[in-house]
């Protein structure tokens, strides 16, 4: 059934959308003139567009244009000079049939498994501790953030020295307790966990900050009530803290998924993608194409990577919504 709109509703709606209503009272001669009112109205209408125009221009120039440019490039064979050759889906077919491409995705997936679940658990524990402790709280918070702000290349160099198979500090410690040396960075079995450890050490402080901010949103009264009901600390953690941190945790998962699939500097500096390409991540594999001026394949690779990362991220977003 069509219900008639209340008298003047449309007008009120439009006025509301466009700013405060003009106060009642005598109008100036200029405002009263039809021509002047039209000019004023156009200014009002155009003003928002004028304000967002700089952003739109920057967005078009640095996001939309490169996106379309790269999409177009992904269908060509172009090495940076001369005319590009249209190859249709050739670059995509090549990559999808290339074992090295799948291997790079597999390496990133393994790193994700080694990093993200561990990082979540670790971050919750550390954040809860940081939220609980009173003494030197600021010091501990800074201490956890310091690795995140340290230059990655410097950390990577430290890793090389620490994990050298013959003369590294880690193997020296193992040797002191009678254990055999491990080829941390030179065997395909250990290189990924060693890189994952570097990434964990570097970025866990950042996730801790996110979790900590989520933790501080939790109403303290909930804990008091739970305590009165006889719930212990572990029960409170499991039944109150973790469920209420779900949004922060899922946000961290999405962020870290993006970060893990873009890992580049760590393997580039520490292992050069080796041994045997076992640490050639999706990001490094993509870089290798671009670095060799194989720009068409690189562009196709980036789109495939975007699709994979978007799919994984959307999966987590869906999970979050489902829980809501």
């Amino acid at each position, binding site marked *: 059934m*069509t*219900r008639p709109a209340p008298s003047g509703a449309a007008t009120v709606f439009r006025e509301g959308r466009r700013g405060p209503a003009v106060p009642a009272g005598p109008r100036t001669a200029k405002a009263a003139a039809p021509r002047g009112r039209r000019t004023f109205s156009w200014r009002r209408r155009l003003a928002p567009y004028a304000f967002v125009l700089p952003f739109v221009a920057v967005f078009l120039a640095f996001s939309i244009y490169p996106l379309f440019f790269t999409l177009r490039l992904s269908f060509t064979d172009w090495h*940076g000079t*001369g005319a590009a*050759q249209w190859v249709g889906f050739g670059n995509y077919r090549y990559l999808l049939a290339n074992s090295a491409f799948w291997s790079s995705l597999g390496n990133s997936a393994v790193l994700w498994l080694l990093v993200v679940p561990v990082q979540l658990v670790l971050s919750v524990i550390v954040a809860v501790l940081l939220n609980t402790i009173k003494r030197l709280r600021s010091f501990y918070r800074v201490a956890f953030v310091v690795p995140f702000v340290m230059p990655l290349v410097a950390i990577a160099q430290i890793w090389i020295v620490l994990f050298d198979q013959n003369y590294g500090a880690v193997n020296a410690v193992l040797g002191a307790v009678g254990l055999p040396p491990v080829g941390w960075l030179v065997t395909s079995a250990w290189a990924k966990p060693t890189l994952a450890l570097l990434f964990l050490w570097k970025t866990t402080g950042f996730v801790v900050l996110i979790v900590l901010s989520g933790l501080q949103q939790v109403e303290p009264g909930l804990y008091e009530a739970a305590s009165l009901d006889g719930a212990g600390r572990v029960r409170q953690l499991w039944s109150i803290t973790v469920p209420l941190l779900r949004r922060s945790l899922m946000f961290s998962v999405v962020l870290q998924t993006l970060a893990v699939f873009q890992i580049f500097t760590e393997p580039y500096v520490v292992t050069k993608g080796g041994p045997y390409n076992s640490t050639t991540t999706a990001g490094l594999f993509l870089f290798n194409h671009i*670095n060799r001026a194989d720009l068409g394949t690189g562009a196709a690779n980036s789109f495939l990577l975007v699709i994979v990362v978007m799919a994984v991220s959307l999966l987590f977003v869906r999970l979050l919504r489902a829980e809501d």
Partner: protein
Amino acid sequence: MNPTLGRNGRSARSFARRGTAIAAAAVLAAGLSACGPDIGSASGPAAGGAMLEVPANASPKGEITIWDRSGDLFKVFDAAIRKFTEKYPGITVHHEAVDIDSKLQNTLITGTDVPDGVFLDDAKVGGYVEHLYNLKDVLAPYTKDIAKQKVDVNTVNGGIYGVPFDLDPGLLFYNAKALSAAGIDPNGIKTYDDLLAAAKKYQQYKPGAKPIHLEQNAFNSQLQLEMYASQLGTSLAGADGQLRLNSAPYQQILTWLDTVQKDGLGTRAEYLKPSDVGALDSGDEVFYPWAIWFDYAPQQQLTATKGDWRAMALPAWSDGGARSGAMGGSSFVIPKDAKNPQLSWLLYQFLTFDQAGYTAVYGPNEVYPGGTNTSIPAYQPAADPAKPLFQPIDAMGGQDLWQTAVEAGRQIPGGAPIPVWWDGAVDYLGTDLQKMLDGSMTPQQVIDQAGKDIQTNLIERK
């Protein structure tokens, strides 16, 4: 229900506006994306070919921007450029330290702020020829006096795209003190079989030692493999671009490396990383077949064995064969989009072929008081055994490395061009080589697998 309201309270008009805005943005973006490269039907990019001509002006004037790697050589060039501007006061040189590997490609592709000259690894020159001047004409007066190997590596489809700068002969570095203690005379090492025998003898003297360096970095191991191949007058691909991996020289080299691995005679370590330095300083690793620039190690890296190291010509692959091969090296390239390419040619002509220029580079300087001894000039009149540009090296027991390197450099055979895809081959050949050195592939498997991958992924996709 109000027909103007959508299910979510959004008006159809609002949807229309948004749709129009999105469509406009898409059209605009699509239009912008058309600003990319032209789409052609040719089977690949057009060949380069802008030929650089010698400047006619006797008193040239102008400004040039030159890119070099940062570090010690940058400072050496800085001083040499001051000599150049004394000769050409009308030319101002902006000398910039740049991460060339990460910046050059984008700069050449976009054509923005393109330098007038760049110091570039020989292995990478081939990959940039479409953006570079062909220097064949300006180099013509000098070509016959340049080491043939350096001309070959800068030659692509008959054009020469780099001013050959340094020659990096492979040498056998050895720990003279350790060998002496083991009763090994290095002068008796004439062939690679002799080297194996000496390594076994050293291992008997020092059980647990792994005397010969086996490179653990994929890129460096491929570079070293090419040194051995250069010694045999070959390289991964011929001038026609055809792969030459499945050939007797590569089978011989890979079999030898595999033997070193299987016999437990090789230290698996990455060039001058902690494991390598540790093994060198502990006397476990005493033979290092490498380019002349390994002399940096006894001068700067080694502590316990500093002063114990010497260098000699590489062993030959067969009696009477060449005793050196080229490993690495750099040249000067001039981009086609350079503003003053002729002025940068004058600079490189000065640094490479003018006595005042190459003396300023290789002779005693602020950075290397005894001279720059990590390479020798590719211009043969500058590499005169009787006129050393750098002095004997204290950290190598006072050895006259100039004499050794110049004589080795003259033995490097030519015929070893570097294919444009050389760098990309590391993912296949370099990786498979590492697998072989770890014992999981045979030499023939490396040849077959890497050959197939290079052919499929690099040659056929160019």
